[in-house]
């Protein structure tokens, strides 16, 4: 008897779960109007991906405080929510999804730029194309576009390049002074420098081909594919076949493979080998600048000992870009006026300058003038961003792209580029189709 009842109850629980999960709807949240506090202020909630106590978090808080002071008379009050990415970017994303499910999405969120397509296509982001005038859009180095529509504005920008050890270069008799962001070196010139470094007796370059567990390798290496004329997906982001496995894309990967085969780079370069003078060049983003300035004084006493070179160009010039952005969400608040005011404030030239002063990143706006000395690493990064910055592929299945890119780089040394790219293309196309067919 007990067993019979237990079976009935178990079956009931499964059936209820099955039907229960399919009838999920977002929670209430107080209707379509924005929340208004006791003093009559319209509350605009904004969720940040950093900890409040961090330098970046404090910069956001200061800008929020300034907004609240400036919009006091207009009765708009910004309420920041800080959800630090303690479990990586995915942890923050889980928070977003939970909020979406519960109907408690903040009015504005910060998000990593490569997620634009996935978030926009899923309806998480609000289309702001008609709310931000064209002349304002033009003030940004990049925009969060999907299918020709605008879904977000960048908080700040990033760029990467080849940090090089001037002491080694001088000793090896290598002159790279002519290679600037305005006049980048070519892929052949890059190889020639690698050869000279190899002959001098050091590992030529740390291309970060070992950094395939996260977004590092895709972020740093995708410009090489664009440089050879390759691509990853069609302009609408829905087709990988014929792009990811095209001859031009293969050429880009073959170039990286050639660097491995010729002994210019390897998977075995230690994390600090460049910083301790064992490697000639190091591919990295602007975040390496403080390390070189402060952390490795024993090897790099001053900026006379290190410099930064741009990405080499092939049939075209391309460099890494992308950072986090702001977006208005498609939450239950139908009136986006107050959220738009806050978005404009947080992406203003003043905010852009304040936040990048705290983070050391490149301002997202062209009208924020940072007086970097021409030829300085910061100047090279900013100029390169302006002249050749290309965003990572815009596709609804970006996480799958990232995974497949890592797998190609990981297996590049011994695998056939053609086979690796065909496999990566199939995997990415399957993921795109799955999301697309789901509607």
């Amino acid at each position, binding site marked *: 008897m007990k067993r019979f009842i237990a079976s009935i109850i178990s079956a009931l*629980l*499964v059936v*209820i*779960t099955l039907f229960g999960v399919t009838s999920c709807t977002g929670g209430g949240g107080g209707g379509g109007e924005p929340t208004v506090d006791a003093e009559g202020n319209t509350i605009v909630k904004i969720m940040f991906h950093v900890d409040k106590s961090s330098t970046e978090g404090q910069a956001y808080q200061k800008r929020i405080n300034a907004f609240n002071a400036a919009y006091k008379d207009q009765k708009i009050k910004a309420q920041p929510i800080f959800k630090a990415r303690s479990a990586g970017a995915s942890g923050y994303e889980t928070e977003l999804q939970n909020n979406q499910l519960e109907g408690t999405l903040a009015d504005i969120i910060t998000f990593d730029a490569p997620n634009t397509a996935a978030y926009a296509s899923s309806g998480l982001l609000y289309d702001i194309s008609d709310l931000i005038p064209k002349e304002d859009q033009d003030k940004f180095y990049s925009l969060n576009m999907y299918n020709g529509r605008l879904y977000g504005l960048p908080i700040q920008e990033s760029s990467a390049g080849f940090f090089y050890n001037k002491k080694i270069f001088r000793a090896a008799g290598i002159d790279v002074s002519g290679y600037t962001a305005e006049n980048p070196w070519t892929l052949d010139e890059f190889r020639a420098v690698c050869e000279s470094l190899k002959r001098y007796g050091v590992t030529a370059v740390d291309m970060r081909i070992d950094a*395939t567990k996260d977004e590092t390798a895709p972020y740093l290496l995708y410009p090489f594919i664009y440089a050879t004329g390759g691509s990853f997906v069609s302009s609408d982001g829905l087709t990988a076949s014929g792009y990811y496995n095209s001859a031009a894309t293969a050429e880009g990967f073959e170039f990286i493979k050639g660097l491995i085969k010729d002994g210019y780079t390897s998977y075995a370069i230690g994390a600090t080998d460049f910083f301790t003078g064992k490697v000639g060049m190091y591919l990295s983003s602007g975040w390496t600048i403080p390390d070189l300035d402060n952390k490795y004084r024993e090897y790099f006493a001053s900026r006379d000992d290190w410099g930064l070179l741009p990405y080499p160009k092939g049939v075209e010039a391309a460099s890494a870009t992308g950072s986090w952005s702001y977006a208005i969400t498609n939450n239950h608040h139908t009136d986006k006026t107050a959220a738009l005011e806050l978005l404009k404030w947080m992406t203003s030239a003043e905010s852009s300058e304040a936040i990048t002063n705290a983070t050391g990143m490149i301002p997202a706006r062209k009208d924020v003038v940072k007086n970097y000395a021409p030829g300085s690493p910061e100047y090279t990064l900013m100029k390169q961003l302006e002249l050749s910055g290309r965003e990572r592929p815009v596709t609804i299945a970006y*996480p799958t792209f990232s995974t497949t890119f890592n797998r190609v780089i990981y297996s590049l040394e011994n695998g056939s580029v053609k086979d690796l790219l065909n496999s990566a293309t199939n*995997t990415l196309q399957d993921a795109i189709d799955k999301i697309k067919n789901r509607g």
Partner: protein
Amino acid sequence: MTKTSIIIFVLFLCAFGGFVAYDLATAKRRKEVYRVKSTATAYLMLLPAIALAFLFILLPILYSLGYAFTDYYLLKPNEINIVFFKNFVQIFEEISEKGMLYNAIKNTATFVIGVVPLQIGLALFLALFVNRPGIGSKIFKVCFFAPVVISLSITAFLWEQILAPGEGGLLNAMLGMVGVPPHDWLRDPKTAMPCIIILSAWQGCGYQMLIFLSGLSNIRKDLYEAASLDGANWWHKFWNVTWVGLRSTIVYILITVFIGACRILTQPMLMTGYMDHTVTLSYYMYNSGYTERFVGESSAVALLMTIFIGGVTLIQRRLFREK
């Protein structure tokens, strides 16, 4: 989802209440007054634990079971449709095409086949080693158990440094002293999984050693004395006394190590990333459900894996059943 959870929870409580009422009614019918009181008390004391187990174990399992038959995409949590067996068809298609899921199954099988005997054998060996009276036995016990209390993430990181490619890796540096050239242990498909197996067995065997020690303490000493009087050597004593005495302990350890091995995730995730030669079923599920956001498909894999593990566990129990 909250509403569904509440409905399920209420239903579960009703079921629990039903069981209690049924039990009480049976007791009353038998006029066992004392039993009625003690049963009620027992159930009330059980209730908090059962409620927590329901919320944090049973409910997620039920949801996962439900999601296996849906097209749940993490970015569209409000639009979930029942797709019946479509996810399972996709799974079998991917296996037949020898895709990443095929690799995950192959690698998980390799890991299980490698780690289960190694870890159990090592644990038994260590247990027998430290079970002998001696000054150092307690120190050895602590030493062998120490890796168990260290976080898997930390041990994975430490072993990554030991197995680092080039001359910077500890293992390569040591081998270099005897003229062996450096090897990229974790990138080479031939050596990556064996390295993960060794690390996992080293990390986990201390726990099983303690269970074996507990089992060894239950074997009567006079059995060994009797065996000695009969002229039994070390092997005869081990096989006819120790092994027989440890039978139920071995079954328990075999089942728990097998289940744990099937669920391996942390080591490949931290040491190699999502790569063909080290991806495992749990890692595939994590990547599919969490990174790529296909919760429906990921749940379907989880369901199949649960059925497989449950089936094998039942077979193990039957094979080792006391005759």
